[in-house]
């Protein structure tokens, strides 16, 4: 696991903790009168949307493009959004982001080669400059490994790990059954693990 192994003591970047449902409902109810309500929602969801999109497209420039487009579409459609249940705002945002990624690949057809220079910075709580390079390498490697999965499994991994959605929510975004999502998630992780181990074995000294 050498290179890809995360260091002991690393703290997880908090991308999954939701705004408490009551608070989110209040913020959404205030959107028409109080722009600051949108600001709070934006600040909460921006890192998750960017991380999700960055894994799906790979380069910083394209991740910025799609993140900006996603939030612009959120703004344009926000008057039509209806709060139906807890976390429905998260589902709505990621459905928009998911559609933008789909649209991106419809136009692009194939995945571009990603150079380290084009990769976004990687979040860390104890960031040291000489680790940045290694973290970017890890990102590129993980991204290449994800690209070997089927599009659906790529999407499920990205929505679970980087967007911070739960299986039930992923099921709602992708119009799937929750059990199917869980199954895809486990199989995708197994595939990734096998791929990683075979890559490691290929580079082991004889």
């Amino acid at each position: 696991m050498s290179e890809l192994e995360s260091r002991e003591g690393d703290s997880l970047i908090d991308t999954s903790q939701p705004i408490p449902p009551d608070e989110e409902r209040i913020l959404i109810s205030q959107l028409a009168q109080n722009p600051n309500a949108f600001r709070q929602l934006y600040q909460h969801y921006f890192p998750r949307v960017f991380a999700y999109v960055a894994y799906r497209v790979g380069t910083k420039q394209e991740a910025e493009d799609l993140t900006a487009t996603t939030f612009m579409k959120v703004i344009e459609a926000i008057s039509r959004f209806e709060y139906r249940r807890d976390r429905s705002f998260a589902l709505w945002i990621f459905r928009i982001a998911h559609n933008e990624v789909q649209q991106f690949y419809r136009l692009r057809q194939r995945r571009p080669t990603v150079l380290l220079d084009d990769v976004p910075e990687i979040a860390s709580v104890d960031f040291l400059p000489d680790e940045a390079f290694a973290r970017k390498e890890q990102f590129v490697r993980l991204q290449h490994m994800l690209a070997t999965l089927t599009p659906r499994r790529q999407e499920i991994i990205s929505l679970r790990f980087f967007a911070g959605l739960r299986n039930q929510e992923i099921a709602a975004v992708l119009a799937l059954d929750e059990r199917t999502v869980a199954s895809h998630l486990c199989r995708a992780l197994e595939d990734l693990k096998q791929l990683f181990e075979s890559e490691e074995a290929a580079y082991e000294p004889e």
Partner: protein
Amino acid sequence: MNQNDHQDDFYIEQLDRLLEKGHPHSDPLVNTLAHILPQADQAFQQELEVALMAHLQPQPIVNWERQMPKVNQSIYRALRPPLTWTVTLAVVALAVAGIMLANLNRAWLPLTAQTPPTATQIDQPVTVVVATQAIPAGTVITEAMVSVISIPQPDGEKLGLMQSGHNVFSNVESVIGQRASVAIRWFQPLETNLIFDPLSDCTAPCVDVPQDYQSVGFPLQTDTLQGLTIGDRVDVLAVIDGEIREIVANVVLTKAESGIVTFAAPAWQASVLAWLYRSGAPYALRLHTGPAPAPLDNAPADVVIVISDAELLDFLFDVIVNVPADKGFMLIHLPGAIDDVPFSSNGDTLYFRFKRPELVNVTDGSTVTLRLPGADAANLDYLLRLRGATASFVPAEPAR
């Protein structure tokens, strides 16, 4: 529910504990996936926030239909309104243009020089001129490069525009025809210390910026220049880690007026100076008195680098050395001139691209010997010894 489902449930439960409570997963790959999270530049997040918030507010003057260059367009592309909105914007713009015409005779005043807002004005938006594209240092600013936008006051405060010392332009006429004294980023509000008027340039003593040098404007009381004169080559000293350090040496003092001094420096030095400016570290100048560096023997020389996967280097490649910007002051000890090595910076990191070194040999799968012209080899070796410096190998750019 079969055996597989049970295993899946256990796996998913572990995953939930990792992602929601931070408990490590038994599979290290899963832990890594959860930790390697790309993040946007803070500046981008903040600029997008401001742009979105401005979009939520009524827009007094926004000319989104201007031609934009390809670079830095993420937010512009997202904010460009559909055609149906253009008519609405045009009506608003016409109304505001009328107000602007009425105010045309008023001299421009920096925002901070105006009367402080009263309680009833507190929610009034701040009108600022922003760059609608990246403007390289030294460029004469044209109408197509700037626009006026209205920013909610809390955003203005967040961007520091309301603080004393930030003299932000509020109408485009004040900046058109002037010259950028530093590189201006897309959506950056234009402040007085970012531009100068080329017509009045030489009313203050000034010298030409040497070819391939960039200008960097810094706030400094001109009466503290202590005997320095325009055209002098100076060293910039800064207090870093509690010590006075020479941060860049041998830059040209090109202009000094109204509390702003302007240096001309090669790109990498300009970037270090820009970092110094942002860091807020106190600094001072002194006359550069060091001997001129002796020319290096440029005969090819070898450099040894240790990397993983070195055996894969079977292509033409460039070596990119990343140096943390806060170690930039160490670059003054570079053994040779580095101006010919392509340089870029993202603010936090300085990137030097050594083009197409000759691969001499690879031993033990990780020890790579490269051959470059003598000065480049000496510089590459020096850079790689700096704390925090890293190297990466990328496919070579086409030869020019």
